[in-house]
């Protein structure tokens, strides 16, 4: 009994320590992001652009791929349901709204967490275990400023951009099914999409993706910078990073959707 209590206790304490660590990292990141430039220590622009290319531009194809096929599947599945109500043409609005509000931001975030979050943890983790992080410190370069801030900024900027493309590709997928399979007139499909899709649907999705970007960057960097124990440690940290990001993305999606829903946004 006692060992059970102590086991639960140590898990809780361990988790709390990690939560504290991530918040500390967030505070430090925001400090270097906001206060740093005034102290003549802005994050390196070259690094930020390199990270934006890596996390944004290089993720485009896989995001396109996932969103397009999600749109197609979504259209087919909803057509199957809506056909029973005789309202097949509403496939257009259903695909558009669910892509913009939910699937666009979430699926993009999950793809990017798997691709970029894992890469961040693996890179920072191997830097940590080969003393490169210490080497940075010994050169009086703050690892948070030098390593975390560019990745954080890149993800917070690029994830919403990717989400916009993802929304569009999802709608294109729906359009393909609607026009070529359900025989909805092309102009009609676009009209219905535009009629039901409001700006609010899009920006709530984008607000979500900003939060997801923060989650992916913070968890990825935190796990990387706290890697211990050689190559195996890097592997473990990467797994934990991706799993944690996934869980937090879904969890915060639920919370944010709740907030938007109950505040009638």
């Amino acid at each position: 009994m006692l060992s059970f209590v102590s086991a639960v206790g140590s898990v809780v304490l361990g988790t709390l320590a990690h939560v504290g660590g991530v918040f500390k990292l967030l505070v430090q990141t925001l400090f270097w992001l906001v206060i740093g430039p005034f102290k003549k220590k802005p994050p390196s622009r070259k690094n930020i652009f390199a990270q934006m290319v890596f996390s944004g531009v290089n993720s485009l194809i896989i995001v396109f791929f996932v969103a397009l096929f999600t749109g197609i599947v979504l259209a087919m599945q909803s057509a199957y349901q809506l056909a029973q109500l005789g309202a097949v043409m509403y496939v257009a609005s259903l695909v558009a709204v669910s892509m913009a509000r939910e699937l666009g931001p979430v699926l993009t975030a999950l793809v990017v967490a798997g691709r970029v979050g894992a890469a961040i943890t693996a890179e920072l983790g191997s830097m940590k275990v080969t003393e490169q992080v210490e080497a940075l410190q010994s050169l009086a370069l703050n690892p948070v400023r030098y390593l975390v801030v560019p990745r954080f900024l890149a993800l917070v900027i690029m994830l919403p951009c990717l989400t916009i493309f993802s929304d569009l590709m999802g709608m294109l997928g729906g359009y393909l099914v609607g026009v070529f399979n359900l025989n909805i007139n092309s102009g009609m499909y676009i009209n219905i999409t535009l009629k039901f899709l409001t700006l609010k649907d899009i920006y709530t999705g984008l607000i979500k993706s900003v939060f997801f970007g923060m989650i992916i960057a913070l968890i990825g960097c935190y796990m990387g910078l706290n890697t211990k124990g050689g190559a195996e440690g890097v592997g473990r940290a990467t797994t934990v990073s991706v799993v944690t990001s996934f869980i937090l993305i879904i969890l915060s999606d639920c919370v944010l959707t709740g907030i938007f829903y109950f505040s009638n946004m």
Partner: protein
Amino acid sequence: MQEKDVIVEVKDLVKTFDGRTVLDGVNLKLRKGETTVIMGGSGCGKSTLLRHIIGSYVPDSGSITIFGKEITSLEESEFDKIRKKFGMVFQNSALFDSMNVEDNLSLALREHTELAEDIIKIMVKMKLELVGLRGFEKLMPSALSGGMRKRVGLARAIAMDPEIIFYDEPTAGLDPIVAGVIDKLILDLGKKLQITSIVVTHDMKSVFSVADRIAMLYEGKVIAEGTMEEIKHSKDPRVQQFITGSPDGPIKFFMDSGGYLEELTK
């Protein structure tokens, strides 16, 4: 001999990792312009001591002063001002994999100085010339041999013209010639530029070629400290055993505490 200014002072430093005491009250003074060698067997806490001085680890108790400033309670931004005055050569070089040799060397210059890019390029060339690797600017660290990486690591450590350089096992794993070159570099930097050096090593050849003063660390304590002659003629059997590298003596190879037969027949 005239007492030189003490620029690094370690007092009663204690550090415990998972219940194992690694540093158990270390006292050490490092004087300006001198090369102090910290020697001791593997796992005696040499590298740990160094990591405390550069601020990677926070001690459980005790104090470290560098340039008269207590660093264990110093704010990160204040500490960075001190860090700019020292360089560190890491055991495994710790070069940044994602950057070529030139960027490795120029990173600190770009970040901390307002120097123009062409001046930085010239400075990088000069530092590489010092370690005999001019012309290797565009290579990535993965394309270099262990000895070359170490020399680049040394060049990176001196890129900002530091006042103190810390060497963590600078000659470990190098062939005798490269090791000799590194030793000569350490000497040159100390003598010509009045740089204070702290060398952590267990390579006795290196110890006797570079040291002004030697401190021997054993079981988390400094057991002997003095000039090279004093250490060479030390009466302490532990010091003598370490110098001669004898397997028999007060320093035991076996870390366990007896009961071998019992453990086998348990």
